[in-house]
């Protein structure tokens, strides 16, 4: 083409003539993201609405997953804190608060294996305990076992074994809900005192660490003999048996041998398997898991609709500008990239305040309910992936509107 007589105001040397190969894919991506951001930024009110929508979805999902995780964690608090090598449980036991009895003889039978050093029957039942301050009664989980055998290692139990062998004594769970009264503070201030469990007066001799569960608000640990003073039960029927193995024994091999040796009215479980079985009951045997899943999905749907609406309205309101860009030589792919870029930006800037708010709410809820609400890294990453997917889907749906931007209609 003839370039002679080009004017001064626009000096274009051939060296920077733009008729070059296209910008690289990364450049194009960066430019599309920048365009998306400039567009989002231009309307603060709409941006805030979109961010609030993403944040709302984010907080809702975090809270649902948090409650679900806390529920399952707390449901397994008791079994989690009973540390032993192997356990015998009835195969039909669904949850620890409602155990099927197993014959105590199974414990002694397990001792037939040379690698089993100790077998301790554990009795579990619920009773009411009177708040020493207000006198109100509250359901407590009572665990009775041979406290001198150290097969079961509760946190803080070891120094109390001598005291617990005396008649009518018990150790109380420090992390029980506050409805039982300031038991820990009273114990720390005045030492042992008497508390009513069931219809008997018991002496509190120490505090241990277990944590409340949805089945019971607190836990009391006592000797097997003291347990029978509250509950008139056949001592030949126990609820759980804890086994301690000889040092160096192969856990898996002993488990397999015992399972073969014992009748099929008991399951031989490792500690993680015992906890997992309890958790599986709450996850699958109750509608709780579904309720939280449903709540999470609703949050994501609402968030997606809000993001979709914002992106869609944005395209619909600027069809002629998008068509102009197409006429200028911007490809459909590039413009789709702008829409997806906007969706991704919304995901990121909505997630950050959503995450911070959720951390704050976790703290508030944990203080209010004594449920163990933590923020594991996997959950943070997982929720970000969900929010990202939510915005991405909204972007994909909104992108279809771009087809309506037809440059041939511009003239």
């Amino acid at each position, binding site marked *: 083409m003839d370039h002679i007589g080009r004017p001064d105001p626009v000096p*274009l040397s051939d060296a920077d003539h*733009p008729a070059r190969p296209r*910008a690289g894919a990364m450049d194009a991506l960066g430019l599309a993201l920048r365009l998306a951001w400039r*567009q989002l930024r231009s309307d603060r009110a709409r941006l805030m609405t979109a961010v609030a929508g993403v944040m709302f979805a984010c907080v809702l999902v975090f809270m649902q997953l948090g409650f679900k995780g806390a529920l399952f964690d707390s449901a397994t608090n008791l079994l989690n804190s009973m540390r032993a090598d192997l356990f015998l449980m009835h195969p039909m036991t669904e949850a620890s608060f409602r155990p099927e009895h197993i014959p105590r003889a199974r414990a002694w039978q397990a001792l037939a294996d040379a690698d089993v050093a100790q077998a301790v029957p554990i009795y579990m039942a619920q009773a009411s305990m009177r708040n020493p301050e207000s006198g109100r009664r509250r359901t407590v989980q009572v665990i009775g076992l041979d406290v001198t055998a150290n097969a079961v290692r509760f946190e803080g139990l070891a120094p109390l074994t001598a005291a617990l062998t005396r008649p009518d004594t018990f150790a109380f769970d420090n992390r029980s809900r506050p409805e039982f009264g300031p038991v820990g503070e009273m114990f720390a201030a005045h030492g042992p005192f008497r508390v009513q469990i069931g219809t008997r007066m018991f002496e509190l001799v120490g505090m241990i660490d277990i944590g409340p569960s949805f089945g019971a608000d607190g836990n009391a640990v006592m000797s097997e003999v003291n347990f029978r003073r509250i509950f008139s039960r056949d001592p030949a029927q126990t609820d759980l048996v804890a086994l301690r193995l000889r040092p160096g024994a192969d856990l898996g091999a002993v488990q397999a041998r015992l399972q073969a040796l014992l009748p099929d009215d008991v399951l031989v479980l490792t500690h993680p398997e015992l906890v997992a079985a309890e958790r599986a009951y709450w996850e699958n045997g109750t509608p709780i898991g579904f309720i939280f899943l449903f709540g999470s999905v609703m949050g994501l749907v609402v968030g997606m609709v809000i993001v979709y609406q914002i992106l869609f309205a944005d395209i619909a309101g600027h069809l002629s500008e998008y068509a*102009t860009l197409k006429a200028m030589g911007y490809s459909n792919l590039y413009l789709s990239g702008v829409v997806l870029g906007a969706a991704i930006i919304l995901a990121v800037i909505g997630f950050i305040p959503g995450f911070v708010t959720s951390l704050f709410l976790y703290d508030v809820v944990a203080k209010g309910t004594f449920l163990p609400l933590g923020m594991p890294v996997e959950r943070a990453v997982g929720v970000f992936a969900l929010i990202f997917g939510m915005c991405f889907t909204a972007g994909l749906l909104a992108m279809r509107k771009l087809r309506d931007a037809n440059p041939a209609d*511009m003239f």
Partner: protein
Amino acid sequence: MEAPLDLSNVTFSYGDGELRRQVLKDVSLSVAPGEIVLLTGPSGSGKTTLLTLIGALRGMQEGKCRVLGQELLGAGEADRVRLRRRIGFIFQNHNLLGFLTARQNVAMALELHGGLNDTARLKRAGEMLAAVGLADHADKRPSQLSGGQRQRVAVARALVAEPGLVLADEPTAALDRASGQEVVHLLSDLARRRGTPILLVTHDPRILDIADRIVAMEDGRIIQADAAGH
């Protein structure tokens, strides 16, 4: 030298079957390098359809249409998108992006081409805005500019990437007489100095003086091609 634009026997219809309506019949037209051609004619005469075909905004049906060396009959979407980057478009409405400044809007036309970084693009856009007399308004948004100023930004956007051809559709329709005159004269001056050919569709008799040639259309045919007074 090859003509930037060369059409022969272009025929085009909308619709199918009974509703089929032919809007272009056997149109042949050639634009020489640096030539400014005005396309006039009543509504429905097919001018706009012709412009969309030349601008690669619509698929060809029959005939030959060679634009800047690219044959459009049977050209794929990717070829057409690539060709559009070498054409400057000016529409009836400015269609500037409201959330970008005038300078950023003009730079958008440069982002499609490699070889320039962001600073260079903005500098070039600024120079182009100065050339259309908007040096002081480069960092304003379209909403802060008058109608004529916005259309001048659109002219700058169409020309900044040094297109091989400029296609304009009624660029003065939304403007008052004075601004309209100003915009088309600016366009023709800049194009003429760079040797860029222009094909401009207009109803506006007040701007006929910028043309090298005036082509009149009626019922999908070219009925008259006059050399204007240049």
